[in-house]
Protein backbone atom coordinates (compact mmCIF):
# COMPACT_ATOMS: atom_id res chain seq x y z
CA UNK A 1 0.00 0.00 0.00
CA UNK A 2 1.42 3.32 -1.01
CA UNK A 3 1.50 5.78 1.85
CA UNK A 4 4.27 7.84 0.30
CA UNK A 5 5.84 10.31 2.67
CA UNK A 6 2.51 11.54 3.97
CA UNK A 7 2.19 12.38 7.64
CA UNK A 8 -0.54 11.36 10.08
CA UNK A 9 -2.74 14.36 9.29
CA UNK A 10 -2.59 13.79 5.53
CA UNK A 11 -3.24 10.05 5.85
CA UNK A 12 -6.07 10.66 8.32
CA UNK A 13 -7.61 13.05 5.82
CA UNK A 14 -7.68 10.28 3.25
CA UNK A 15 -9.35 7.96 5.81
CA UNK A 16 -11.88 10.69 6.63
CA UNK A 17 -13.14 10.98 3.06
CA UNK A 18 -15.67 8.24 3.73
CA UNK A 19 -17.63 9.55 6.68
CA UNK A 20 -20.00 6.59 7.26
CA UNK A 21 -16.99 4.29 7.34
CA UNK A 22 -15.22 6.49 9.86
CA UNK A 23 -18.30 6.39 12.07
CA UNK A 24 -18.47 2.61 11.75
CA UNK A 25 -14.76 2.27 12.62
CA UNK A 26 -15.18 4.59 15.58
CA UNK A 27 -18.20 2.72 16.93
CA UNK A 28 -16.68 -0.73 16.46
CA UNK A 29 -13.58 0.15 18.45
CA UNK A 30 -15.58 1.88 21.14
CA UNK A 31 -17.63 -1.30 21.47
CA UNK A 32 -14.41 -3.23 22.09
CA UNK A 33 -13.40 -0.61 24.66
CA UNK A 34 -16.79 -1.05 26.38
CA UNK A 35 -16.21 -4.81 26.55
CA UNK A 36 -12.87 -4.12 28.20
CA UNK A 37 -14.59 -1.97 30.82
CA UNK A 38 -17.12 -4.66 31.57
CA UNK A 39 -14.39 -7.27 32.04
CA UNK A 40 -12.29 -4.95 34.20
CA UNK A 41 -15.22 -4.07 36.42
CA UNK A 42 -15.90 -7.73 37.27
CA UNK A 43 -12.62 -7.81 39.20
CA UNK A 44 -12.62 -5.73 42.40
CA UNK A 45 -8.81 -6.12 42.49
CA UNK A 46 -8.36 -4.67 38.97
CA UNK A 47 -6.41 -1.61 40.11
CA UNK A 48 -4.16 -3.70 42.36
CA UNK A 49 -3.48 -5.97 39.39
CA UNK A 50 -2.48 -2.99 37.23
CA UNK A 51 -0.22 -1.77 40.01
CA UNK A 52 1.38 -5.19 40.44
CA UNK A 53 1.91 -5.51 36.68
CA UNK A 54 3.47 -2.08 36.57
CA UNK A 55 5.82 -2.88 39.45
CA UNK A 56 6.87 -6.20 37.94
CA UNK A 57 7.66 -4.49 34.63
CA UNK A 58 9.59 -1.72 36.42
CA UNK A 59 11.63 -4.40 38.12
CA UNK A 60 12.24 -6.05 34.73
CA UNK A 61 13.55 -2.81 33.27
CA UNK A 62 15.93 -2.24 36.17
CA UNK A 63 17.35 -5.79 35.96
CA UNK A 64 16.93 -6.49 32.27
CA UNK A 65 20.52 -7.48 31.47
CA UNK A 66 20.59 -9.97 34.36
CA UNK A 67 17.19 -11.42 33.44
CA UNK A 68 18.22 -11.78 29.80
CA UNK A 69 21.30 -13.76 30.82
CA UNK A 70 19.24 -15.91 33.16
CA UNK A 71 16.66 -16.53 30.45
CA UNK A 72 19.36 -17.47 27.94
CA UNK A 73 20.97 -19.92 30.34
CA UNK A 74 17.68 -21.63 31.22
CA UNK A 75 16.43 -21.74 27.63
CA UNK A 76 19.71 -23.29 26.47
CA UNK A 77 19.48 -25.89 29.24
CA UNK A 78 15.96 -26.65 27.97
CA UNK A 79 17.36 -27.44 24.52
CA UNK A 80 16.32 -24.18 22.87
CA UNK A 81 18.78 -22.30 20.63
CA UNK A 82 19.05 -18.61 21.57
CA UNK A 83 20.01 -15.94 19.03
CA UNK A 84 20.66 -12.23 19.58
CA UNK A 85 19.73 -9.57 17.04
CA UNK A 86 20.91 -5.99 17.50
CA UNK A 87 18.54 -4.58 14.89
CA UNK A 88 15.90 -5.46 12.31
CA UNK A 89 18.48 -6.41 9.68
CA UNK A 90 20.23 -8.75 12.11
CA UNK A 91 16.89 -10.35 13.02
CA UNK A 92 15.84 -10.91 9.44
CA UNK A 93 19.19 -12.40 8.50
CA UNK A 94 19.15 -14.80 11.46
CA UNK A 95 15.70 -16.07 10.47
CA UNK A 96 16.70 -16.45 6.83
CA UNK A 97 19.91 -18.30 7.73
CA UNK A 98 17.93 -20.77 9.88
CA UNK A 99 15.55 -21.46 7.00
CA UNK A 100 18.44 -21.89 4.57
CA UNK A 101 20.26 -24.30 6.89
CA UNK A 102 17.14 -26.44 6.93
CA UNK A 103 16.44 -26.14 3.21
CA UNK A 104 13.05 -24.51 3.86
CA UNK A 105 11.45 -22.07 1.41
CA UNK A 106 7.84 -21.95 2.67
CA UNK A 107 6.78 -21.05 6.20
CA UNK A 108 3.74 -20.27 8.31
CA UNK A 109 3.81 -17.41 10.77
CA UNK A 110 1.45 -16.48 13.60
CA UNK A 111 1.00 -12.93 14.76
CA UNK A 112 4.18 -11.10 15.69
CA UNK A 113 4.25 -7.33 15.76
CA UNK A 114 8.04 -7.56 16.04
CA UNK A 115 8.31 -9.17 12.60
CA UNK A 116 6.09 -6.35 11.28
CA UNK A 117 8.43 -3.83 12.90
CA UNK A 118 11.39 -5.54 11.20
CA UNK A 119 9.60 -5.88 7.82
CA UNK A 120 10.46 -9.57 7.85
CA UNK A 121 7.85 -10.63 5.29
CA UNK A 122 9.19 -8.26 2.62
CA UNK A 123 12.74 -9.32 3.34
CA UNK A 124 12.02 -13.05 3.19
CA UNK A 125 9.94 -12.71 0.06
CA UNK A 126 12.86 -10.94 -1.61
CA UNK A 127 14.98 -13.99 -0.73
CA UNK A 128 12.42 -16.24 -2.36
CA UNK A 129 10.78 -17.46 0.86
CA UNK A 130 6.99 -17.76 0.90
CA UNK A 131 5.47 -16.50 4.17
CA UNK A 132 1.85 -17.30 5.04
CA UNK A 133 0.38 -15.28 7.90
CA UNK A 134 -2.01 -17.58 9.74
CA UNK A 135 -3.92 -15.26 12.05
CA UNK A 136 -7.16 -14.69 10.13
CA UNK A 137 -6.97 -10.90 10.34
CA UNK A 138 -3.33 -10.91 9.31
CA UNK A 139 -4.04 -13.29 6.44
CA UNK A 140 -6.74 -10.92 5.21
CA UNK A 141 -4.46 -7.88 5.17
CA UNK A 142 -1.69 -9.97 3.64
CA UNK A 143 -4.01 -10.94 0.76
CA UNK A 144 -4.94 -7.28 0.40
CA UNK A 145 -1.23 -6.38 0.34
CA UNK A 146 -1.65 -4.05 3.31
CA UNK A 147 -0.03 -3.86 6.75
CA UNK A 148 -2.20 -4.59 9.84
CA UNK A 149 -4.04 -1.49 11.05
CA UNK A 150 -4.34 -2.65 14.68
CA UNK A 151 -2.06 -4.90 16.75
CA UNK A 152 -4.87 -7.10 18.08
CA UNK A 153 -7.49 -6.64 15.35
CA UNK A 154 -5.34 -6.45 12.18
CA UNK A 155 -8.17 -5.90 9.67
CA UNK A 156 -10.54 -3.84 11.81
CA UNK A 157 -10.63 -1.27 8.98
CA UNK A 158 -12.08 -3.76 6.49
CA UNK A 159 -15.75 -4.41 5.71
CA UNK A 160 -16.88 -8.00 5.35
CA UNK A 161 -17.86 -7.37 1.73
CA UNK A 162 -14.27 -6.40 0.93
CA UNK A 163 -13.04 -9.55 2.68
CA UNK A 164 -15.55 -11.59 0.68
CA UNK A 165 -14.12 -10.12 -2.52
CA UNK A 166 -10.54 -10.85 -1.44
CA UNK A 167 -11.45 -14.46 -0.65
CA UNK A 168 -13.28 -14.80 -3.93
CA UNK A 169 -10.16 -13.68 -5.74
CA UNK A 170 -7.58 -15.62 -3.72
CA UNK A 171 -9.39 -18.59 -2.16
CA UNK A 172 -12.06 -19.15 -4.78
CA UNK A 173 -15.09 -18.56 -2.55
CA UNK A 174 -18.33 -17.68 -4.38
CA UNK A 175 -18.57 -14.03 -5.46
CA UNK A 176 -20.77 -11.89 -3.26
CA UNK A 177 -20.62 -14.15 -0.20
CA UNK A 178 -19.68 -11.98 2.79
CA UNK A 179 -20.91 -14.14 5.65
CA UNK A 180 -18.25 -14.06 8.41
CA UNK A 181 -18.90 -17.69 9.40
CA UNK A 182 -18.58 -18.90 5.85
CA UNK A 183 -15.46 -16.85 5.17
CA UNK A 184 -13.77 -17.90 8.41
CA UNK A 185 -14.41 -21.54 7.54
CA UNK A 186 -12.99 -21.06 4.05
CA UNK A 187 -9.83 -19.64 5.63
CA UNK A 188 -9.74 -22.54 8.12
CA UNK A 189 -9.76 -25.11 5.31
CA UNK A 190 -7.22 -23.18 3.24
CA UNK A 191 -4.80 -22.61 6.12
CA UNK A 192 -5.09 -26.16 7.46
CA UNK A 193 -3.35 -27.36 4.32
CA UNK A 194 -0.55 -24.82 4.97
CA UNK A 195 -0.11 -25.93 8.60
CA UNK A 196 0.14 -29.54 7.48
CA UNK A 197 2.68 -28.95 4.72
CA UNK A 198 5.04 -26.25 6.05
CA UNK A 199 8.17 -27.42 7.84
CA UNK A 200 8.92 -24.20 9.69
CA UNK A 201 6.63 -22.10 11.87
CA UNK A 202 7.31 -18.69 13.28
CA UNK A 203 5.55 -17.23 16.31
CA UNK A 204 5.79 -14.12 18.38
CA UNK A 205 6.22 -14.15 22.15
CA UNK A 206 3.93 -12.52 24.69
CA UNK A 207 5.99 -13.28 27.79
CA UNK A 208 9.33 -14.99 28.43
CA UNK A 209 10.16 -16.24 31.93
CA UNK A 210 13.73 -15.62 33.12
CA UNK A 211 13.44 -18.16 35.94
CA UNK A 212 12.47 -21.11 33.69
CA UNK A 213 13.51 -20.20 30.13
CA UNK A 214 9.98 -20.81 28.84
CA UNK A 215 7.94 -18.42 26.71
CA UNK A 216 4.20 -17.90 26.44
CA UNK A 217 2.23 -17.27 23.25
CA UNK A 218 -1.42 -16.20 23.48
CA UNK A 219 -3.92 -16.69 20.65
CA UNK A 220 -7.65 -17.22 20.26
CA UNK A 221 -7.49 -19.01 16.95
CA UNK A 222 -4.96 -21.69 17.86
CA UNK A 223 -2.83 -20.76 14.85
CA UNK A 224 0.45 -20.43 16.76
CA UNK A 225 0.02 -23.95 18.14
CA UNK A 226 -1.11 -25.48 14.85
CA UNK A 227 2.03 -24.08 13.24
CA UNK A 228 4.55 -24.80 15.97
CA UNK A 229 3.45 -28.33 16.91
CA UNK A 230 3.39 -29.58 13.33
CA UNK A 231 6.62 -27.96 12.10
CA UNK A 232 10.14 -29.38 12.31
CA UNK A 233 11.52 -25.95 13.11
CA UNK A 234 9.89 -23.42 15.45
CA UNK A 235 11.35 -19.92 15.43
CA UNK A 236 10.01 -17.53 18.08
CA UNK A 237 10.97 -13.86 17.88
CA UNK A 238 10.76 -11.52 20.83
CA UNK A 239 11.73 -8.02 21.82
CA UNK A 240 14.11 -8.08 24.79
CA UNK A 241 11.52 -6.31 26.97
CA UNK A 242 9.13 -9.30 26.94
CA UNK A 243 10.90 -10.88 29.94
CA UNK A 244 9.12 -11.47 33.22
CA UNK A 245 11.17 -12.59 36.23
CA UNK A 246 9.20 -15.61 37.52
CA UNK A 247 6.62 -18.05 36.27
CA UNK A 248 4.00 -17.01 38.82
CA UNK A 249 4.18 -13.42 37.49
CA UNK A 250 2.34 -14.75 34.45
CA UNK A 251 -0.79 -14.91 36.61
CA UNK A 252 -0.92 -11.12 36.79
CA UNK A 253 -0.29 -10.56 33.09
CA UNK A 254 -2.62 -13.28 31.81
CA UNK A 255 -5.41 -11.85 33.98
CA UNK A 256 -4.86 -8.40 32.48
CA UNK A 257 -3.99 -9.06 28.84
CA UNK A 258 -7.17 -10.44 27.27
CA UNK A 259 -9.49 -8.44 29.52
CA UNK A 260 -7.74 -5.25 28.39
CA UNK A 261 -7.58 -6.32 24.75
CA UNK A 262 -11.03 -7.71 23.93
CA UNK A 263 -12.84 -8.09 27.24
CA UNK A 264 -12.34 -11.87 27.31
CA UNK A 265 -11.40 -13.40 30.70
CA UNK A 266 -8.34 -14.97 29.02
CA UNK A 267 -7.32 -15.85 25.45
CA UNK A 268 -8.47 -19.29 24.30
CA UNK A 269 -4.87 -20.54 24.31
CA UNK A 270 -2.03 -19.48 26.61
CA UNK A 271 0.72 -21.79 25.41
CA UNK A 272 3.87 -22.26 27.49
CA UNK A 273 6.76 -23.44 25.29
CA UNK A 274 9.66 -24.71 27.37
CA UNK A 275 11.45 -27.46 25.43
CA UNK A 276 11.32 -28.52 21.79
CA UNK A 277 9.35 -31.70 21.22
CA UNK A 278 11.33 -34.81 20.28
CA UNK A 279 13.07 -34.32 16.93
CA UNK A 280 12.10 -30.65 16.69
CA UNK A 281 14.32 -27.55 16.65
CA UNK A 282 13.22 -24.60 18.73
CA UNK A 283 14.87 -21.20 18.27
CA UNK A 284 14.40 -17.91 20.07
CA UNK A 285 15.58 -14.65 18.54
CA UNK A 286 16.06 -11.89 21.12
CA UNK A 287 15.75 -8.55 19.36
CA UNK A 288 16.94 -5.14 20.53
CA UNK A 289 16.19 -2.84 17.56
CA UNK A 290 16.29 0.39 19.54
CA UNK A 291 14.91 -0.94 22.82
CA UNK A 292 18.19 -0.52 24.72
CA UNK A 293 18.28 3.12 23.53
CA UNK A 294 14.71 3.71 24.72
CA UNK A 295 15.72 2.14 28.05
CA UNK A 296 18.25 4.95 28.42
CA UNK A 297 15.66 7.72 27.87
CA UNK A 298 14.38 8.34 31.40
CA UNK A 299 11.19 10.05 30.18
CA UNK A 300 10.30 7.33 27.69
CA UNK A 301 11.73 4.07 29.03
CA UNK A 302 8.53 2.87 30.61
CA UNK A 303 6.95 2.58 27.16
CA UNK A 304 8.92 -0.71 27.19
CA UNK A 305 6.46 -2.06 29.78
CA UNK A 306 3.83 -2.43 27.04
CA UNK A 307 2.21 -5.87 26.72
CA UNK A 308 0.57 -5.06 23.34
CA UNK A 309 -3.07 -5.35 24.40
CA UNK A 310 -4.28 -2.52 22.15
CA UNK A 311 -6.53 -0.95 24.81
CA UNK A 312 -4.98 2.49 24.24
CA UNK A 313 -5.94 2.32 20.57
CA UNK A 314 -9.52 1.22 21.18
CA UNK A 315 -10.10 4.11 23.55
CA UNK A 316 -8.23 6.80 21.58
CA UNK A 317 -10.54 9.37 19.92
CA UNK A 318 -7.84 10.12 17.34
CA UNK A 319 -7.08 6.49 16.49
CA UNK A 320 -10.75 5.61 16.21
CA UNK A 321 -11.36 8.40 13.73
CA UNK A 322 -8.12 8.28 11.77
CA UNK A 323 -7.51 4.53 11.38
CA UNK A 324 -4.39 2.52 12.07
CA UNK A 325 -2.78 3.08 8.69
CA UNK A 326 -2.57 6.82 9.24
CA UNK A 327 0.20 6.16 11.80
CA UNK A 328 2.47 4.71 9.05
CA UNK A 329 4.26 2.45 11.58
CA UNK A 330 3.86 -1.19 12.67
CA UNK A 331 2.34 -0.26 16.02
CA UNK A 332 -0.35 2.38 15.60
CA UNK A 333 -2.19 4.47 18.17
CA UNK A 334 -0.95 6.16 21.33
CA UNK A 335 1.63 3.54 22.33
CA UNK A 336 2.99 3.35 18.78
CA UNK A 337 3.34 7.12 18.78
CA UNK A 338 5.73 7.00 21.73
CA UNK A 339 7.65 3.96 20.47
CA UNK A 340 8.16 5.09 16.87
CA UNK A 341 10.07 8.38 17.39
CA UNK A 342 12.70 6.40 19.29
CA UNK A 343 13.40 4.45 16.10
CA UNK A 344 13.41 7.45 13.75
CA UNK A 345 12.66 10.98 15.00
CA UNK A 346 12.45 12.55 11.56
CA UNK A 347 10.17 9.94 10.03
CA UNK A 348 7.80 9.80 13.01
CA UNK A 349 7.95 13.44 14.19
CA UNK A 350 4.25 13.79 13.36
CA UNK A 351 2.98 10.98 15.60
CA UNK A 352 3.21 12.51 19.11
CA UNK A 353 1.05 15.33 17.72
CA UNK A 354 -1.65 12.85 16.63
CA UNK A 355 -3.30 13.05 20.04
CA UNK A 356 -5.66 15.26 22.01
CA UNK A 357 -3.70 14.46 25.20
CA UNK A 358 -7.03 13.52 26.80
CA UNK A 359 -5.31 10.83 28.87
CA UNK A 360 -7.78 8.02 28.22
CA UNK A 361 -4.91 5.81 26.99
CA UNK A 362 -3.05 6.13 30.29
CA UNK A 363 -6.23 5.33 32.21
CA UNK A 364 -6.85 2.02 30.45
CA UNK A 365 -3.22 0.88 30.18
CA UNK A 366 -2.92 -2.40 32.14
CA UNK A 367 0.72 -1.74 33.03
CA UNK A 368 0.19 1.94 33.86
CA UNK A 369 2.34 3.55 31.18
CA UNK A 370 1.95 7.35 31.34
CA UNK A 371 1.24 7.39 27.60
CA UNK A 372 -0.23 10.87 27.24
CA UNK A 373 2.52 12.44 29.35
CA UNK A 374 5.08 10.83 27.09
CA UNK A 375 3.30 12.11 23.99
CA UNK A 376 3.53 15.60 25.46
CA UNK A 377 7.21 15.12 26.34
CA UNK A 378 8.02 13.81 22.85
CA UNK A 379 6.53 16.98 21.38
CA UNK A 380 8.98 19.04 23.38
CA UNK A 381 11.93 16.86 22.41
CA UNK A 382 10.96 16.95 18.73
CA UNK A 383 10.58 20.73 18.64
CA UNK A 384 13.88 21.24 20.48
CA UNK A 385 15.68 18.90 18.10
CA UNK A 386 14.27 20.79 15.13
CA UNK A 387 11.83 18.17 13.83
CA UNK A 388 8.68 20.31 14.07
CA UNK A 389 7.24 21.40 10.71
CA UNK A 390 7.99 25.06 9.81
CA UNK A 391 4.30 26.04 9.57
CA UNK A 392 3.62 24.74 13.08
CA UNK A 393 6.65 26.62 14.40
CA UNK A 394 5.54 29.91 12.85
CA UNK A 395 1.98 29.41 14.06
CA UNK A 396 3.23 28.71 17.58
CA UNK A 397 5.42 31.83 17.53
CA UNK A 398 2.40 33.84 16.39
CA UNK A 399 0.34 32.39 19.22
CA UNK A 400 3.04 33.19 21.75
CA UNK A 401 3.15 36.82 20.55
CA UNK A 402 -0.63 37.18 20.60
CA UNK A 403 -1.19 35.52 23.97
CA UNK A 404 1.54 37.52 25.69
CA UNK A 405 0.26 40.93 24.47
CA UNK A 406 -3.20 41.80 25.92
CA UNK A 407 -3.81 44.55 23.35
CA UNK A 408 -3.02 42.29 20.40
CA UNK A 409 -5.05 39.49 21.98
CA UNK A 410 -8.16 41.68 22.37
CA UNK A 411 -7.84 43.01 18.84
CA UNK A 412 -7.37 39.50 17.37
CA UNK A 413 -10.48 38.26 19.19
CA UNK A 414 -12.57 41.14 18.02
CA UNK A 415 -11.35 40.81 14.43
CA UNK A 416 -12.06 37.07 14.48
CA UNK A 417 -15.63 37.52 15.73
CA UNK A 418 -16.29 40.26 13.17
CA UNK A 419 -14.99 38.15 10.30
CA UNK A 420 -16.99 35.04 11.31
CA UNK A 421 -20.10 37.17 11.57
CA UNK A 422 -19.82 39.51 8.55
CA UNK A 423 -17.64 37.72 6.02
CA UNK A 424 -17.69 34.02 7.07
CA UNK A 425 -16.32 32.77 3.72
CA UNK A 426 -12.91 34.02 4.85
CA UNK A 427 -12.79 31.18 7.40
CA UNK A 428 -15.35 28.76 5.95
CA UNK A 429 -13.07 27.47 3.22
CA UNK A 430 -10.59 24.75 2.48
CA UNK A 431 -7.59 26.85 3.47
CA UNK A 432 -8.66 26.80 7.10
CA UNK A 433 -7.76 23.42 8.70
CA UNK A 434 -10.37 23.97 11.44
CA UNK A 435 -13.10 23.98 8.79
CA UNK A 436 -12.24 20.45 7.58
CA UNK A 437 -14.94 17.91 8.49
CA UNK A 438 -16.66 20.50 10.70
CA UNK A 439 -18.83 23.58 10.69
CA UNK A 440 -17.36 26.68 12.27
CA UNK A 441 -19.17 27.72 15.48
CA UNK A 442 -21.49 30.71 15.76
CA UNK A 443 -19.31 33.66 16.80
CA UNK A 444 -20.22 35.01 20.26
CA UNK A 445 -21.45 38.60 20.41
CA UNK A 446 -18.72 39.61 22.79
CA UNK A 447 -15.65 38.18 24.48
CA UNK A 448 -15.69 37.09 28.11
CA UNK A 449 -13.48 40.10 28.91
CA UNK A 450 -16.03 42.47 27.41
CA UNK A 451 -18.93 40.73 29.13
CA UNK A 452 -17.17 40.81 32.50
CA UNK A 453 -16.33 44.51 32.22
CA UNK A 454 -19.97 45.34 31.51
CA UNK A 455 -21.59 43.08 34.09
CA UNK A 456 -19.15 43.84 36.84
CA UNK A 457 -20.02 47.56 36.65
CA UNK A 458 -23.75 46.81 36.66
CA UNK A 459 -23.40 44.62 39.75
CA UNK A 460 -21.41 47.05 41.82
Amino acid at each position, binding site marked *: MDQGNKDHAALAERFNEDEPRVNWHDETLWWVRAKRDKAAHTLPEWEQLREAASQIKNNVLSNLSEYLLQFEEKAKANGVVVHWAADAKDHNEIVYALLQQNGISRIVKSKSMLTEECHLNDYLQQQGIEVIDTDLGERIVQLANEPPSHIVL*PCIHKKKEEIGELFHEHLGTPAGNADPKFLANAARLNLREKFLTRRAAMTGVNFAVAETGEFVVCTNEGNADMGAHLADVHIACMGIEKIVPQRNHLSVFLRLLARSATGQP*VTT*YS*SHFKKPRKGQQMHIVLVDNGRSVQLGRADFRNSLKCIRCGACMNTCPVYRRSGGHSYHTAIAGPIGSILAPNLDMRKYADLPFASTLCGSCSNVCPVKIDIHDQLYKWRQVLVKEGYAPAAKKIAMQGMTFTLSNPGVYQFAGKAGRWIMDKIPFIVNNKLNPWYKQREMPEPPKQSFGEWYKKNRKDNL
Partner: protein
Amino acid sequence: MNSREKILSAVKNNQPAQNILPELQSFLKPDTKVLEKYINVLTAIGGLAHVVNSYAEIDNIIGQEYKEAQRIISLSKELPMPGRAEKYADPHELETVDLAIINAQFGVAENAAVWVTDDMLPQRVLPFITQQLAVIIKRTDIVPTMHYAYERIGNADYGFGVFIAGPSKTADIEQSLVLGAHGPKTMRVFIL
Protein backbone atom coordinates in the same frame (compact mmCIF):
# COMPACT_ATOMS: atom_id res chain seq x y z
CA MET B 1 31.66 -6.91 19.66
CA ASN B 2 28.95 -9.36 18.61
CA SER B 3 25.23 -8.59 18.87
CA ARG B 4 24.85 -10.41 22.16
CA GLU B 5 27.55 -8.42 23.93
CA LYS B 6 26.46 -5.20 22.26
CA ILE B 7 22.87 -5.62 23.45
CA LEU B 8 23.78 -6.74 26.96
CA SER B 9 26.22 -3.91 27.54
CA ALA B 10 23.82 -1.28 26.16
CA VAL B 11 21.04 -2.63 28.37
CA LYS B 12 23.29 -2.75 31.42
CA ASN B 13 24.39 0.85 30.87
CA ASN B 14 20.87 2.14 30.40
CA GLN B 15 18.81 0.18 32.91
CA PRO B 16 17.39 2.34 35.71
CA ALA B 17 17.89 2.03 39.45
CA GLN B 18 16.52 -0.97 41.31
CA ASN B 19 12.75 -1.43 41.55
CA ILE B 20 11.42 -3.99 44.00
CA LEU B 21 9.09 -6.83 42.93
CA PRO B 22 5.58 -6.70 44.42
CA GLU B 23 4.27 -9.51 46.60
CA LEU B 24 1.43 -11.47 45.04
CA GLN B 25 0.18 -13.35 48.13
CA SER B 26 -2.60 -10.82 48.73
CA PHE B 27 -4.21 -11.90 45.44
CA LEU B 28 -4.88 -15.37 46.88
CA LYS B 29 -8.47 -14.97 48.02
CA PRO B 30 -10.39 -18.21 48.63
CA ASP B 31 -13.67 -18.66 46.78
CA THR B 32 -16.28 -21.27 47.62
CA LYS B 33 -18.36 -20.92 44.48
CA VAL B 34 -15.74 -22.15 42.02
CA LEU B 35 -17.88 -24.83 40.36
CA GLU B 36 -20.76 -22.49 39.65
CA LYS B 37 -18.42 -19.79 38.40
CA TYR B 38 -16.49 -22.21 36.20
CA ILE B 39 -19.67 -23.39 34.49
CA ASN B 40 -20.97 -19.85 33.97
CA VAL B 41 -17.75 -18.59 32.44
CA LEU B 42 -17.28 -21.65 30.22
CA THR B 43 -20.79 -21.23 28.86
CA ALA B 44 -20.22 -17.52 28.27
CA ILE B 45 -17.07 -18.16 26.19
CA GLY B 46 -18.79 -20.71 23.96
CA GLY B 47 -17.88 -23.93 25.78
CA LEU B 48 -20.18 -26.66 27.09
CA ALA B 49 -20.17 -27.91 30.66
CA HIS B 50 -21.50 -31.16 32.12
CA VAL B 51 -21.38 -32.02 35.79
CA VAL B 52 -21.31 -35.84 35.87
CA ASN B 53 -21.05 -38.52 38.53
CA SER B 54 -19.46 -41.36 36.62
CA TYR B 55 -17.51 -42.28 33.51
CA ALA B 56 -20.56 -44.21 32.34
CA GLU B 57 -22.42 -40.91 32.23
CA ILE B 58 -19.64 -39.32 30.16
CA ASP B 59 -19.65 -42.30 27.84
CA ASN B 60 -23.37 -41.89 27.40
CA ILE B 61 -23.14 -38.19 26.53
CA ILE B 62 -20.30 -38.82 24.10
CA GLY B 63 -22.39 -41.48 22.37
CA GLN B 64 -25.26 -39.00 22.06
CA GLU B 65 -23.38 -35.86 21.08
CA TYR B 66 -20.70 -37.08 18.68
CA LYS B 67 -22.61 -39.48 16.45
CA GLU B 68 -20.88 -38.09 13.37
CA ALA B 69 -17.36 -38.50 14.73
CA GLN B 70 -15.42 -41.05 12.70
CA ARG B 71 -12.08 -40.94 14.42
CA ILE B 72 -12.04 -40.55 18.18
CA ILE B 73 -8.94 -40.54 20.34
CA SER B 74 -9.53 -41.02 24.04
CA LEU B 75 -6.73 -40.48 26.51
CA SER B 76 -8.92 -41.59 29.38
CA LYS B 77 -8.27 -45.14 30.60
CA GLU B 78 -11.84 -45.26 31.82
CA LEU B 79 -13.24 -44.45 28.38
CA PRO B 80 -11.59 -46.85 25.95
CA MET B 81 -12.39 -45.95 22.37
CA PRO B 82 -11.54 -47.98 19.27
CA GLY B 83 -8.85 -45.48 18.29
CA ARG B 84 -7.28 -45.23 21.74
CA ALA B 85 -4.11 -43.25 21.66
CA GLU B 86 -0.92 -45.17 21.52
CA LYS B 87 2.18 -43.43 20.33
CA TYR B 88 2.22 -41.22 17.28
CA ALA B 89 5.74 -40.58 16.03
CA ASP B 90 4.54 -37.89 13.64
CA PRO B 91 2.00 -35.24 14.70
CA HIS B 92 0.65 -35.18 11.14
CA GLU B 93 -0.92 -38.59 11.81
CA LEU B 94 -3.51 -36.74 13.88
CA GLU B 95 -4.79 -34.71 10.93
CA THR B 96 -8.10 -36.54 10.68
CA VAL B 97 -9.09 -36.72 14.36
CA ASP B 98 -12.72 -35.73 14.83
CA LEU B 99 -12.88 -35.91 18.60
CA ALA B 100 -10.15 -35.94 21.24
CA ILE B 101 -11.06 -36.79 24.81
CA ILE B 102 -8.31 -35.62 27.13
CA ASN B 103 -7.65 -35.21 30.83
CA ALA B 104 -6.62 -31.88 32.33
CA GLN B 105 -4.79 -31.28 35.59
CA PHE B 106 -7.20 -28.63 36.81
CA GLY B 107 -9.63 -25.92 35.80
CA VAL B 108 -9.64 -22.19 36.61
CA ALA B 109 -13.00 -20.72 37.67
CA GLU B 110 -12.37 -17.09 36.68
CA ASN B 111 -11.73 -17.87 33.00
CA ALA B 112 -12.85 -21.49 32.51
CA ALA B 113 -9.39 -22.53 31.34
CA VAL B 114 -8.01 -26.03 31.86
CA TRP B 115 -4.31 -26.73 32.29
CA VAL B 116 -2.80 -29.49 30.15
CA THR B 117 0.86 -30.49 29.88
CA ASP B 118 2.61 -32.46 27.15
CA ASP B 119 3.22 -35.53 29.33
CA MET B 120 -0.56 -36.06 29.18
CA LEU B 121 -0.68 -35.97 25.37
CA PRO B 122 0.54 -38.36 22.65
CA GLN B 123 1.49 -35.26 20.62
CA ARG B 124 1.28 -31.60 21.60
CA VAL B 125 -0.86 -30.80 18.58
CA LEU B 126 -3.75 -33.11 19.58
CA PRO B 127 -5.98 -30.61 21.45
CA PHE B 128 -5.53 -28.11 18.60
CA ILE B 129 -5.82 -30.24 15.47
CA THR B 130 -8.90 -32.18 16.58
CA GLN B 131 -12.22 -30.95 15.19
CA GLN B 132 -13.87 -31.21 18.60
CA LEU B 133 -12.39 -31.35 22.07
CA ALA B 134 -13.69 -32.97 25.24
CA VAL B 135 -11.89 -32.52 28.54
CA ILE B 136 -12.33 -34.33 31.83
CA ILE B 137 -11.56 -32.59 35.13
CA LYS B 138 -12.42 -33.43 38.72
CA ARG B 139 -14.70 -31.03 40.52
CA THR B 140 -12.19 -30.89 43.36
CA ASP B 141 -9.62 -29.66 40.85
CA ILE B 142 -11.10 -26.25 40.13
CA VAL B 143 -9.09 -23.32 41.48
CA PRO B 144 -10.51 -19.80 41.79
CA THR B 145 -8.01 -17.68 39.85
CA MET B 146 -4.80 -17.70 37.83
CA HIS B 147 -2.86 -16.93 41.01
CA TYR B 148 -3.96 -20.26 42.44
CA ALA B 149 -3.28 -21.88 39.08
CA TYR B 150 0.39 -20.90 39.15
CA GLU B 151 0.64 -21.80 42.85
CA ARG B 152 -0.48 -25.23 41.81
CA ILE B 153 1.83 -25.48 38.78
CA GLY B 154 4.73 -24.39 41.01
CA ASN B 155 8.07 -25.26 39.44
CA ALA B 156 6.77 -28.27 37.52
CA ASP B 157 9.04 -29.31 34.69
CA TYR B 158 7.16 -29.74 31.43
CA GLY B 159 8.16 -29.40 27.79
CA PHE B 160 4.92 -27.69 26.87
CA GLY B 161 1.92 -26.61 28.90
CA VAL B 162 -1.24 -24.82 27.86
CA PHE B 163 -4.28 -23.16 29.33
CA ILE B 164 -7.23 -23.92 27.04
CA ALA B 165 -10.34 -21.80 27.52
CA GLY B 166 -13.14 -22.74 25.17
CA PRO B 167 -13.26 -23.59 21.47
CA SER B 168 -10.86 -21.79 19.12
CA LYS B 169 -12.42 -18.58 17.89
CA THR B 170 -11.99 -15.47 15.80
CA ALA B 171 -13.76 -12.16 15.50
CA ASP B 172 -11.46 -10.76 12.83
CA ILE B 173 -14.24 -10.25 10.29
CA GLU B 174 -16.18 -7.18 11.45
CA GLN B 175 -15.98 -8.35 15.08
CA SER B 176 -18.45 -11.17 14.35
CA LEU B 177 -17.65 -14.05 16.68
CA VAL B 178 -17.00 -17.34 14.86
CA LEU B 179 -16.30 -20.51 16.85
CA GLY B 180 -13.77 -22.83 15.23
CA ALA B 181 -10.94 -20.73 13.83
CA HIS B 182 -8.00 -23.13 13.37
CA GLY B 183 -8.50 -25.36 16.38
CA PRO B 184 -11.55 -27.25 17.72
CA LYS B 185 -14.99 -25.98 16.84
CA THR B 186 -16.40 -27.10 20.19
CA MET B 187 -15.06 -27.67 23.68
CA ARG B 188 -16.99 -29.78 26.15
CA VAL B 189 -15.81 -30.09 29.72
CA PHE B 190 -16.92 -32.99 31.89
CA ILE B 191 -16.69 -32.14 35.56
CA LEU B 192 -16.51 -35.36 37.54
